[in-house]
């Protein structure tokens, strides 16, 4: 069975569920994805009546993490009289994880949302495809069989989906939103209970085996085009600080320019802040206007946190985030010791 039929089924299913939820007044509004105006894009949409349900869409280009719109809530999610509305969130695995992790940071009240689970099979790495197509305009993108087919004025090119999936999605083990037994009403649609996640992190072994010079070159090359527009930060559901560290000016911690040291510092500290919090949605890379790939950094973080603290983010709303927690027996092999 090809990808496209699977996706169509998911979409039909999604619309059914959404319709039901709105009809039975189980939710006040639903946030989901709708068709974008450009071939490689999708658009977030908020609907509050049954008629609009058919606008909802699901495909491999729905890469925005919708949890972003809940912290802080967009004005439509707050009723002037009733207060916070009950929001149904069309959730692939990582959106569900983001919501649950945000709940563990007390940013979301899980009673005020409903997770509409979707089994996600990964999103297309649009930047990679765009770069490979190069200086030709993409007019149409479709998924047929297991290929992404990109059409333009005088070309047509197929990309195997497995390879041109966003890197983070390739190793994703949480494709459906996690089911939380404590909140039986939280999830509708396809969700799954995860007990323990086994991840070998084979994908970054190659990177880890590089020499420091090679790593430095890789990082500096990748980040050299950064314009510091902070799209990565704004698209990240975990970046909800009122005042980001780069914007702080009392004192000014780090430079705001696009000089390499400043750019490196920004990404380094942001990575620091993502430890144990990143939910591997890949939104940061996919929104980057310059096409910078931050996936490797996020994967590495996941690995560090998993290996050191045995933690996977976004599976348990009651779990204490690892960076505010400690164990007496945490590994400390990196500490200086007398010989």
């Amino acid at each position: 069975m090809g990808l496209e039929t699977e996706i169509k089924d998911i979409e039909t299913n999604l619309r059914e569920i959404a319709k039901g939820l709105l009809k039975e007044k189980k939710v006040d509004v639903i946030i989901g994805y709708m068709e974008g105006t450009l071939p490689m894009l999708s658009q977030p949409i908020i609907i509050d009546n049954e008629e609009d349900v058919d606008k909802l869409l699901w495909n491999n280009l729905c890469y925005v993490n919708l949890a972003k719109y809940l912290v802080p809530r967009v004005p439509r999610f707050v009723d002037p009289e009733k207060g916070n509305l009950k929001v149904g969130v069309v959730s692939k695995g990582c959106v569900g994880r983001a919501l649950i992790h945000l709940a563990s940071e007390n940013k979301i009240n899980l009673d005020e949302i409903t997770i509409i689970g979707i089994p996600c099979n990964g999103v297309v790495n649009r930047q990679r495809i765009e770069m490979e197509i190069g200086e030709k305009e993409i007019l149409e993108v479709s998924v047929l069989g297991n290929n992404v087919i990109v059409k333009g004025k005088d070309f047509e090119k197929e990309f195997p989906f497995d390879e041109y999936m966003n890197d983070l999605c390739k190793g994703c083990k949480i494709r459906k939103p996690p089911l939380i037994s404590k909140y039986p009403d939280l999830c509708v649609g396809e969700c799954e209970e995860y007990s323990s996640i086994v991840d070998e992190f084979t994908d970054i072994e190659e990177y880890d085996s590089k020499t420091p010079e090679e790593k430095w070159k890789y990082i500096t090359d990748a980040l050299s085009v950064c314009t510091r527009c902070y799209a990565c930060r704004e698209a990240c559901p975990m970046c909800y600080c009122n005042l980001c560290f780069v914007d702080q000016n009392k004192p000014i911690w780090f430079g705001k320019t696009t000089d390499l040291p400043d750019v490196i510092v920004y990404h380094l500290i942001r990575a620091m802040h993502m430890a144990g919090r990143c939910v591997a949605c890949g939104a940061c890379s996919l929104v980057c206007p310059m096409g910078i790939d931050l996936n490797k950094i996020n994967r590495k973080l996941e690995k560090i946190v998993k290996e050191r603290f045995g933690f996977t983010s976004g599976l348990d709303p009651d779990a204490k985030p690892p960076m505010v927690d400690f164990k007496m027996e945490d590994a400390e092999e990196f500490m200086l010791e007398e010989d």
Partner: protein
Amino acid sequence: MTEPSVEIKQSENKEWEPKIIAFLCNWCSYAGADLAGVSRIQYPPNIRIVRVPCSGRINAYFIIKSLTDGWDGVLVSGCHPGDCHYISGNLVARRRFAILKELLEFFGIEPGRVNFMWASAAEGERFAVLVRKATEIVKKLGPNTKFEKKW
């Protein structure tokens, strides 16, 4: 952070010496450094000490800012696990240090520039030994140039 107040003498024939900023926790390591001094235990003059209330106070900003400000190395020292004056400050910090250390390595920045250690108020000798060790590590790495801006 301002520049080190004492300039390390660098004459032509002398070899390069690193400058290391050391964040010491008030309750253990700072007292440990003091003990080393009172006991006249020699340790390299490369470190400049900043006293902080607890190693848990150390934010990654401090460390990275030090590197961008041109310090060749950063040393953070706190109480031994379990001995923290604030019960668990150093344990939370330890996780942070672990992440930072690995991330630096990931970015291709020599992780040896940033070192962490525990030293209690009674361990003047240990303090001196570890400072010596940290200085050697940083010295081997050479000057910190990765964060230098073009002028």
